[in-house]
């Protein structure tokens, strides 16, 4: 992977000026490359990684396994595309194995997610069955630990 993308994946807020120094490039070259990645759709967005558990708000996330009947010609893509349009759906993947689609669905509470599953998801043409698991606690999200790490314990000066 391009080192520029590695840097942005670690910290999307890294300034083009800093990246330019790290990669021995001009600032303009870095900006142009980022713009190009955005235009190509390789960079799809920039988000903050939150530890939502620390916020004083009501929220739940469910992981839902879905079995579907693939359509002739459309395969899984058409139904997956329809499901992905619901704003409740945070992530959606086609899986190998015992089920077909894996969804991450967010809601205010259990009831809201249950309503989405029974009223929207399960009733879609092609959906054969669903299995819903609720998340209890987040330990790591997008490669980031949700537990605050100990401060640097190294000696302040060493040979």
């Amino acid at each position: 992977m391009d080192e520029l993308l590695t840097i942005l994946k670690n910290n999307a807020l890294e300034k083009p000026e800093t990246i330019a120094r790290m990669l021995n490039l001009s600032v303009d070259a870095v900006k142009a490359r980022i713009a190009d990645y955005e235009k190509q759709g390789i960079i799809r967005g920039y988000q903050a990684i939150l530890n939502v558990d620390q916020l004083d708000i009501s929220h739940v996330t469910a992981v839902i396994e879905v079995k579907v009947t693939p359509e002739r010609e459309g395969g899984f893509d058409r139904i997956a595309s329809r499901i992905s349009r619901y704003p409740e759906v945070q992530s959606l993947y086609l899986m190998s194995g015992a089920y077909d689609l894996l969804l991450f669905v967010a809601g205010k509470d259990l009831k809201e997610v249950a309503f989405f599953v029974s009223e929207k998801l399960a009733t879609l043409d092609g959906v054969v069955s669903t299995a819903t698991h609720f998340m209890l606690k987040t330990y790591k999200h997008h490669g980031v630990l949700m537990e605050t790490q100990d401060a640097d314990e190294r000696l302040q000066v060493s040979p």
Partner: protein
Amino acid sequence: MPTNDSKSPRDFIAGHIVDMPRSGIRDFFDIVSTMKDIISLGIGEPDFDTPWHVREYTVFALERGATHYTSNMGLLELRRAISKYVEKAFRASYKPETEILITVGVSEALDLALRATLNPGDEVLYHEPCYVSYRSDVILAHGTPVTVETKRDNQFRLTRAMLEAKATPRTKVLLLNFPNNPTGAILRKEDLVEIAAFARERNLLVITDEIYAELTYDGEHTSIASLPGMKERTIFLHGFSKAWAMTGFRLGYACAPPELTEAMMKVHQYTMLCAPTMSQKAAIEALTKPQTAVVEMTAEYRRRRNYLVKSFEEMGLPCTTPAGAFYAFPYIGHLGIASKDFALKFLDREKVAVVPGTAFGACGEGFVRCAYATSMENIQEAMRRMARFVQSLKKG
């Protein structure tokens, strides 16, 4: 009865220890450690944690009972892994059974190499600026250290001519460290070839500390041990502290022909017995699994190095681009301030710790060592403060 004239405890200390100065790093450490909330570019060890699979495996090994002594030489499985690794990465082949000794860090390996080979008064050629222990280690082994100074105006190169100028009939050992702490310099291939020829012609033993070999940024590392006719006169030292971020495990090794390995083994068996068993297990895990973490850490060090070099350039501080290790050694001599005063003032005014170049030898005067084994955020903030500080010095 003889009178017991009150003897000072100091009188018990051996002559060569009384005269030995404390490491310049320690003096500076004592000052820094009294201060809070500083950004330190003074740390000579990785900021990365030891790769998780290594830590996890160490715990597993402890649970399985890796708590006893190993053979003096170290676990054979580890020596086999090292033999394979050194063959592949350094193109030097050593037999696990007779030519590899596991030690408590490169620190012990260096001590063993010197003690096993030096007779009192034998001269050891070594280059400065260098790692703080070299000079004292030679003295501890009753050898005579002979300094060869490397200079900024030719990128801290070490050349045959520089060695020739200091060699005498008593010269026995040539001690090398590339990539270098504190300059980040590496040896050019043409210099390496010439230095090897010099060692062969003069019948010298070469002790080569290649602990930073993996952290080489602009090309491939070449070991002097891999050059023709060198293996029989070389003790190759390496360890896990730097590239694998395993400083606290205290694990290193020496590779050398059987006779030399056996000689080092004697000292090791009577003074250390063996390296820590759980650390040896950890090292097996570190060497035999994919080197993903080493590659990623190296890439990150390279980015930080680039950032530093550019920052020094903008501040008007000449700095040879470090080709390896994780130190930059910018020149501050033109600011009309001694290294130590620079470091003390910078610490006092801007709360950033850098190490005075003089800690690495007299010819380090005019330089400070900035380690980039710290986060990009720290580096950025430290460079902002350094630019401000340098500006204030220029104004006088």
